[in-house]
């Protein structure tokens, strides 16, 4: 763990017990976030992005269990911390924005009260002053006529406004780390841009670190300084944004880049990724969970997964990474 890291997740493994067997949802997930940095966790649905966040926050489903690893937040290991320790961290130093603001907000409590609750609980604000400060928070996240809106309920607001309220709640206690789990899924592109700007502005103002979870590589490339690509519970590549997008080394990342509509000039250039995620309940999962879809599979791939540093801060979990300077188009054509 480097000194400037806010959060350092190491070898995190999570499994879920289900009636049809154990689902090994995360396996040896390692990444870290520096102070003030925005990183993105990117992957298809089922790749373990959200589970990573839930595990860090200690809000896994009761069926889920952390089997290995640690998540160091300062001096505290969040995965081993007691409920009391966690309660002091969550909401105050780390907070989270959830995917669907309408379901994450309390439907029968005015939004101003919901923000005030957090201020009183975590912001050490006297109960008497909290409502006024809640209105100020609403103003800060750009809600017009905040005094009137504070007494409104979530159903009276648009999706974008609900997400602003979520942001106000998450930021009320001035956390040093924000986890945003698909904060703009289901919102319009225009609203998405505004919401992402808002999060970015707060992050720069307060030197707040952000973990941004998304399936949209284009959005991630625009907003994050570093991208962590996940596939079937593994981190397959972790690199600075520009390196990852222009010079992806893991075959899966390369396919993901080629499947991003914005990168294609015409429809025929748009690539699909063959195969699908392996069933994580299988007991015979190969060490590299991508190997069964991979066009670059070699004999080495049946050995335990390597974590190769291929550049400064560029780590790839592959025995046969794509060569540097190979044009991206060729690499995809080979599949």
């Amino acid at each position, binding site marked *: 763990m480097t000194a400037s890291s806010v959060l350092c997740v190491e070898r995190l493994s999570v499994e879920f017990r289900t009636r049809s067997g154990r689902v090994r949802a995360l396996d040896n997930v390692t990444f870290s976030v520096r102070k003030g940095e925005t990183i993105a966790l990117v992957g*298809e*649905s089922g790749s373990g992005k959200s589970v990573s966040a839930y595990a860090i926050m200690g809000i896994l489903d009761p069926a889920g269990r952390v089997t290995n690893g640690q998540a160091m937040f300062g001096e505290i290991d969040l995965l081993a911390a007691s409920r009391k320790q966690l309660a002091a961290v969550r909401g105050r130093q780390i907070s989270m924005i959830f995917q669907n603001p309408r379901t994450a907000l309390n439907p029968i409590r005015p939004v101003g009260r919901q923000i005030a609750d957090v201020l009183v609980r975590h912001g050490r604000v006297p109960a008497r002053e909290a409502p006024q400060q809640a209105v100020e928070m609403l103003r800060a996240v750009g809600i*017009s006529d905040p005094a009137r809106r504070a007494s409104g309920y979530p159903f009276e607001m*648009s*999706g*974008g*406004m609900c997400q602003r309220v979520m942001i106000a709640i998450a930021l009320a206690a001035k956390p040093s780390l924000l986890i945003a789990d698909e904060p703009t899924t289901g919102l*319009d*592109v*225009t*609203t*998405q*841009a*505004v919401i992402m*700007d808002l999060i970015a502005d707060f992050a720069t103002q307060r030197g707040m670190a952000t973990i941004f979870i998304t*399936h*949209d*590589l*284009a*959005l991630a*490339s*625009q*907003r994050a300084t570093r991208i962590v690509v996940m596939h079937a519970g593994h981190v397959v590549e972790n690199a600075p*944004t*520009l390196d990852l*997008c*222009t010079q992806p080394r893991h075959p899966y990342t390369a*396919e*993901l*880049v080629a*499947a*991003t*509509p*914005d*990168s*294609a000039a*015409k*429809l*025929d250039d*748009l*690539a*699909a*990724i063959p195969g*699908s995620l392996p069933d994580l309940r299988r007991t015979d999962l190969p060490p590299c969970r991508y190997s069964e879809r991979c066009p670059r599979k070699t004999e080495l791939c049946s050995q335990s997964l390597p974590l190769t540093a291929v550049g400064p801060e560029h780590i790839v979990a592959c025995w046969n990474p794509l060569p540097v300077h190979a044009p991206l188009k060729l690499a995809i054509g080979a599949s």
Partner: protein
Amino acid sequence: MTVLLDVDHVSKFFPVGGGPNQLARLKRRLSGGAEKLPKVYAVDNVSLVINKGETVGLVGESGCGKSTLVRALTRLIDVSGGSIKLGGRELALKPARVFARDRDRARIQMVFQDAGDSINPRFTAFDAIADPLRRLRNIRGKTLKERVEVVAGQCGLPSVLLSRFPHQLSGGQRARVGIARAIATEPDLLVLDEPTAALDVSVQAVILQLLQQLKRELGMSYLFVSHDLSLVRLLCDHVMVMYLGKIVESGPARAVFERPWHPYTQALVAAVPRFAGAAAERLRLKGEPRSPIDPDPNVCRFYGRCPIGASDCKSKAPVLRRIGSRHVACHFAEEFVVQRVGPVHGAQANRQI
């Protein structure tokens, strides 16, 4: 090019009840006065043309009326006014219930947003695809089985999967069932409502390429509804941008996205995340859209969020006018033509008008 669908000045209003004046309204009604409910102007005087074999994109934010427009022109709901002609035959006058058994029903089909939700969970893939054939084409027995298998094959759905229920299929396979069901009756117009919104990027391309291939093989026209502009750019020949019930800009897809003229389109294009590139411009919309309930006919619908917002904009609503190969509804469109294309080109563009 032959015109397939001609939509002329179509409107759809929804009366809204309730509200604080309910008692006053009841009194007025009892005393014999005219009762006038406020209306949501979901679709307001929209005209559009879809040619044979063309792919038209319809974009706009949620609540702008694109779904209502689509439902109106697929004749799932009745319109409040205007005409919808399919190959010269007027459809708008038939109530939706009657049209459900009309011979032209089979000619307009729809692929709905989330195939997981829009296929009857108690129908197997076979039943889902066979249903429109039974109802609209009156095909039964062996012919039906053959037809379903042919269509499934066209959509890349192996026939072993036909006996499965939706929950036993993957997202991509479900999307294929949704498409197979829609093309089974050999429609002339296929309306696609965000066909890939529920899919991962890994399968998105396959489905889009399938749609492209089907269009080439079967010669259908597409109306592609989406808020993902990067997809619309790849798929569509022509694009229409809708804002609060009105079309604000329409034209050739490439041109509209490269040089948007209406301020709303500009904001929309600027908001699309560009891959690995710095945001070119930070044009952001402030505030919320105006209320669609009884909008003031003399104010531009975009006023209040628009970065221009001049005094003209709140005294005179702009009409959709032709500029070159496009239509734009903005008083200041010409300024953007000049500004964006550069003075030389701009002058030429102005001359063409």
